[in-house]
């Protein structure tokens, strides 16, 4: 729910911005505790870890015993602890999502059978799930039964990924020969003592690593972040992602990790950060697919330019819009700040929306309704005031009545397309007053 909608429901609500770096600081002790039982814990995000347990199960004497041990060790932290156990990470993640507060452990005996019963929504793509449902396919088992070629032909790379997951194949690693050591490291002399400076370096390193891997046509799903302090102590953490890391997502993870080491339970990075190393350990060929006429260099260049423009104009002023349902032009656009995840549309794009203003769309739409002067004679528009002069109306279309949500206090309004010799305008008449909604420029 958007904060605006939440405030509409509850005006006294307090909005707290999510700070994932701070959450990672709180989560780091949990990860360390798990690591005392089982090494090589992989963090997906603050709050979620993957634990490879094949060796540990034998050592502790069974899956349930191991899970009980983990839960016991995490007792001092309080809160809700849930464990999903499966042969693959996708099934394990879905298993943990099916746990409840009262049943916090879900052990999957047969990954294939478990995945087959999952709803298509578990693929994590609303568009894909919607398309599958429209085709009458509601479970991953049904997706797995589809011919692979047909899925690729219809849904492209996203469909291929979904098909793999539905068949219980998490990903294809190392698709072709890649030089052995792809790790990237930076040494700092003198050591970096400022967190912001370290975060900046992290961004640069992430950019170099992903850029280097992209040239081989691969992308990392797991990255080991290693920081060496000036006193020689070394700290390391593995991060995992279901989708391959991009420059942005990897830089973010490195920043969270650095902050958790600096502000967390460990004694910080004593003497400053001397070396920062990023090592990709799980590569797949599912890197970003460029469009036919797009080139990787141009893409990077554009990202750099947009970041610069964001710094000049402000974050809120670099925007991308996406279509959504609605009756009026303003309603049919959903704005997102550039670089942020696209918002899910507030209104269904495919719904019929009776009373929608027909195409073509006005090229200029004021952010708020602007008073617009029209003289009416017997309900017929006669003249329009444009700046200081009155211009005769040549023709018009409408009224198209819009009945708002009367239970929310929205009134009735009539929309008109007004044509003059100077251009065409979309306007709304509400409670006897006329407002400009758009200009057909």
């Amino acid at each position, binding site marked *: 729910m958007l904060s605006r909608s939440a405030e509409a429901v509850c005006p006294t609500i307090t909005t707290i911005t999510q700070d994932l770096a701070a959450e990672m600081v709180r989560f780091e002790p949990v990860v360390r505790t798990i690591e005392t039982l089982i090494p090589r814990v992989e963090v997906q995000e603050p709050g979620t870890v993957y634990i490879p347990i094949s060796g540990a199960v034998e050592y502790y004497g069974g899956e349930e015993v191991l899970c009980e041990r983990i839960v016991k060790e995490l007792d001092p932290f309080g809160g809700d602890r849930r464990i999903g156990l499966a042969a693959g990470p996708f099934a394990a993640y879905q298993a943990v999502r099916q746990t409840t507060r009262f049943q916090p452990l879900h052990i999957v005996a047969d990954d294939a059978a478990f995945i087959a019963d999952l709803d298509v929504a578990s693929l994590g793509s609303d568009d894909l799930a919607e398309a599958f449902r429209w085709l009458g396919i509601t479970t991953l088992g049904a997706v797995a039964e589809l011919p692979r070629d047909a899925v690729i032909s219809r849904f492209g790379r996203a469909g291929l990924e979904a098909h793999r997951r539905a068949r219980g194949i998490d990903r294809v690693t190392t698709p072709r020969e890649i030089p052995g050591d792809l790790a990237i490291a930076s040494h700092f002399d003198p050591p970096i003592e400022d967190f912001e400076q370290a975060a900046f370096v992290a961004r640069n390193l992430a950019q170099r690593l992903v850029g280097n891997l992209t040239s081989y046509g691969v992308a990392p799903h797991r990255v080991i972040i290693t920081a060496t302090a000036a006193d020689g102590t070394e700290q390391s953490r593995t991060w995992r992602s279901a989708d391959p890391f991009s420059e942005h997502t990897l830089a973010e993870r490195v920043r969270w990790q650095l902050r958790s080491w600096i502000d967390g339970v460990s004694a910080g990075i004593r003497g400053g950060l001397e070396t920062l190393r990023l090592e990709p350990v799980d590569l797949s060929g599912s890197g970003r697919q460029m469009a036919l006429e797009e080139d990787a260099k*141009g893409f990077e260049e554009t990202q750099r330019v947009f970041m610069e423009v964001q710094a000049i104009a402000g974050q809120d002023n670099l925007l991308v819009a996406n279509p959504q349902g609605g009756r009026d032009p303003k309603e049919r656009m959903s704005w997102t700040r550039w670089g942020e995840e696209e918002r899910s549309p507030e209104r269904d794009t495919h719904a019929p929306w009776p009373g929608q203003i027909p195409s*073509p769309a006005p090229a200029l739409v004021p952010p708020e309704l602007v008073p617009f002067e029209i003289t009416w004679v017997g309900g017929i528009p006669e003249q329009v005031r444009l700046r200081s002069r009155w211009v005769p109306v040549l023709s018009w279309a409408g009224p198209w009545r819009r009945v708002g949500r009367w239970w929310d206090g929205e009134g009735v309004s009539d929309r008109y397309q007004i044509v003059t010799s100077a251009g065409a305008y979309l306007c709304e008449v509400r409670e006897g007053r006329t407002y400009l909604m758009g200009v057909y420029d």
Partner: protein
Amino acid sequence: MIATLQHSGVSSTPRWNDFGHANELLTLAPGQIAGLSGIPGSGLTRIGLSLLAPYALRGPLVYIDVRGWASPMAAWEMGIEPERFVVVRSNDIVSWGRIVATLLDGVRGVYAEVPTGLRDQVLYRLAALARTKRTPLVLRPVSGKLPSGVAYLNLEAREVLWEGTEAGHGSLTNRRTCLVASGRATRGMVRTIEVEDDGTNDLRVVPHLGARTTGPDMGRIRAG
């Protein structure tokens, strides 16, 4: 519904040997600058976007929105994918020039509304930069016209004729905009052209309706 449309590819410098090539006037080659002048409602936003639309196949286009009124729906109707249309809102004269200069360095095309009160010198510099970086640039002054020599193609709206509405019936369908074209694109001559826009397709110059209003070879022009 937003239609995904076909665009002619980006061609080299437009030629205007006769009116059969009039459509090429509405093509902007890399590094060329178009200046649009006319009051809001004359259809110039769609014309400007159509000049840049072929470049959206290669990367994002940026619309610098000075008034804060830009609606991407018009761009989507021109066949520009939503994720390829980025809007920068800036009405600050000081930062406007920096933003345009930065964008010219890394995007495929820029449509910029020009704020009132901007010094001519800034526009000349940006035009030179656009030529150097080979980035097509469309400039639309919020009021007035561009100083002479900035744009390769100047388009000034003279008249707009809408079809589809009649005393309360129907809805807007087709628009014919009468434009005066000038600049190096028309070899220094002033020409009158008419552009048809059906709202969901590329713009099209109406054949044999344009007329050269001035020029040395007036007598050899086909009847408009």
